[in-house]
């Protein structure tokens, strides 16, 4: 196995679910300060990749490495990966009835520094209120139960709020743009851009160009049948919007189809 560097890097990653291979050798490197977009047809394995990065117990890693901050993170528990600075904005955030947003986020913020000094509740709430204002969220959300009865768009905004509060060094956003209205998309993008900077790496999973207008990717990758079949610059997205995935399949999918 090769050495791990400081930046986020996936090497030859293979993973299966219930014995069925989904990821079949994914290679991807996201350096600090870079934003990468990941696109691909439904069922190609994008969410699987996101889950495997975060260590979902339902997926079995059958080969490869995921490197971050100089180590292979595959042997770390999910919460340890989070504490290392990895964040996943879920495509389908789950509800936790009875647990308020404030309680949840305070628990998470404290958990991020095990053994460290706890954040004072007052200071934390103040910060949270500022982020909520920034994301144009009703302050009442702070006392609502996490994602319980939230609309699709509200859940997505909640993911961004969490990301702002937890300040990760690397984030995977799984279709955060899906289901957002035009105004919400702008606000959510503004939230993400607040973190984008020289020390932050971002992997943006999306189906549409529209979000990439607000968050400019440095690179774009196309995942197909569990492999990144083509990578390029941000201009690629135009071609995809116009022509769909057929040409990709024809040009780059041959080796996949040949197997």
């Amino acid at each position: 196995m090769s050495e791990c560097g400081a930046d986020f890097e996936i090497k030859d990653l293979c993973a299966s679910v219930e014995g069925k291979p989904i990821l079949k050798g994914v290679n991807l490197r996201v350096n600090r300060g870079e934003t990468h977009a990941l696109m691909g047809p439904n069922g190609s394995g994008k969410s699987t990749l996101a889950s495997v990065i975060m260590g979902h117990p339902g997926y079995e890693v059958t080969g490869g490495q995921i490197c971050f901050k100089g180590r292979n993170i595959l042997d770390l528990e999910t919460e340890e990966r989070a504490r290392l600075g990895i964040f996943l904005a879920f495509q389908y955030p789950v509800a936790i009835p009875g647990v308020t947003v404030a309680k949840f986020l305070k628990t998470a913020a404290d958990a991020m520094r095990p053994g460290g000094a706890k954040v004072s509740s007052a200071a934390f709430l103040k910060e949270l209120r500022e982020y909520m204002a920034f994301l144009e969220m009703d302050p009442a959300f702070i006392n609502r139960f996490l994602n319980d009865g939230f609309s699709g768009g509200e859940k997505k905004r909640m993911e961004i709020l969490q990301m702002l509060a937890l300040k990760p060094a690397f984030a995977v956003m799984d279709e955060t743009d899906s289901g957002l209205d035009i105004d919400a998309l702008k606000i959510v993008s503004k939230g993400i851009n607040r973190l984008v900077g020289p020390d932050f790496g971002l992997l943006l999973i999306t189906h549409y160009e529209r979000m990439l207008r607000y968050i400019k990717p440095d690179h774009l990758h196309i995942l197909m049948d569990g492999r990144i079949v083509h990578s390029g610059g941000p201009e690629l997205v135009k071609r995809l919007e116009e022509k769909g995935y057929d040409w990709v399949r024809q040009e780059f999918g041959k080796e996949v189809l040949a197997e």
Partner: protein
Amino acid sequence: MSTPETPDVLKDEYKYGFYTDIEADSAPKGLNEDIIRFISRKKGEPDWMLEWRLKAYRGWLKKKEPRWAYLDYPPIDYQDICYYSAPKTGPAGEVDEELRKTFERLGIPLDERKRLEGVAVDAVFDSVSVATTHKDILAEKGILFCPISEAIREHPDLVRKYLGSVVPPADNFFAALNSAVFTDGSFCYIPKGVRCPIELSTYFRINARNTGQFERTLIVADEGSYVSYLEGCTAPLRDENQLHAAVVELIALDDAQIKYATVQNWYAGDKEGRGGIYNFVTKRGHCRGQRSRISWTQVEVGSAITWKYPGCVLEGEHSVGEFYSVALTNHRMQADTGTKMIHIGSHTRSTIVSKGISAGESVNSYRGLVQVLPDAVGCRNHSQCDSMLIGDKCKANTFPVVEAENGSAVIEHEATTSRISEDQLFYLKSRGITEEDAVSLVVNGFCKEVFKQLPLEFAVEAIRLLELKLDKSIG
């Protein structure tokens, strides 16, 4: 969706499992009329009380132990139990040093100088009450709060009027047994129009080996009065099972309100199901007066066997009964618990919120009865019974029974069963939260509606207790 294995977070350690080495004055094992006479004499009781006990005992002899609950336990040998054990204490009015230390370890200071802010405590150790705090504040308002044995001697008229008026000795097997042999417990009377300014609390501790605990609590709220009452219980860790059969009677007259909360943490036995308390309890409130109100809140996290159905007899028109329950079972614990709401008066209302959490190989059953009598017009009930399963070796059952004999009744019942899902835990863990904290967040969230019924400081205690029961780090 797949389910997680029972997480090791469910390994708990019972921190109240210590034993106090203290000299005790005990009755020989076994039950007969002489033992009852012995108890009555020890308590310095009047004749009428002894007669009441003997009658209950004779009734008990003709009764059969109920076995209809969803519980599995070996036969209980009632002759192998000691029915009276009293710690030998110093001069009258002083709490023995060892006893004082025991209660301090339990977080219950008996010292008047250190007493809990805003809570008057009656501490019961095995068969006797050892101390009652805050007597001054209560006396000022005319509130009676004392050991029931003292009340029998000092306030016989009140006791005779109300004792057994809600749970008669013949009510059931365990109530009959309790009536025959009850040793201590608390008595509380709130006079007309008085709002009790502090929480009243009784703390029960079983200490001696082979001793049963049979406490009796009687609370009477006179017209327009209010009282909030909390009961806590613990016992040492022992290999053998110990019997606890309590009776609690609440009486609310016109416009009176009683809130009764229990945090039951008797020793539950070890992981393999060895030892633990058998908890057979009859608790009933009687909303005797119009617009009276009784609410039961219970947090049941202990005992090997729990058989308990705190209910309300809603006789006064427009009276209200409430039942809020969290029952957590783990390892081999078995709980069969729920409530009975009997609507006798017109326009009576009841609310039931039951949250059962089963983990390990435990069995947790909700059993409820909502009954509306033919003459009761315009009654309402709302029941919400939720079960949560942790792991796949545990069981949850719900047995709700509705008998509405008046057509105007509006009865709503909702029930859900859920598992802590792998996706919920993954979501929380992805935010840096450990598995055990994630489980406890989800569980606490699930119980929220019940916890908010508890006085704040006890809600905090209940949450802490639940976390302890679900915490690996203490294993």
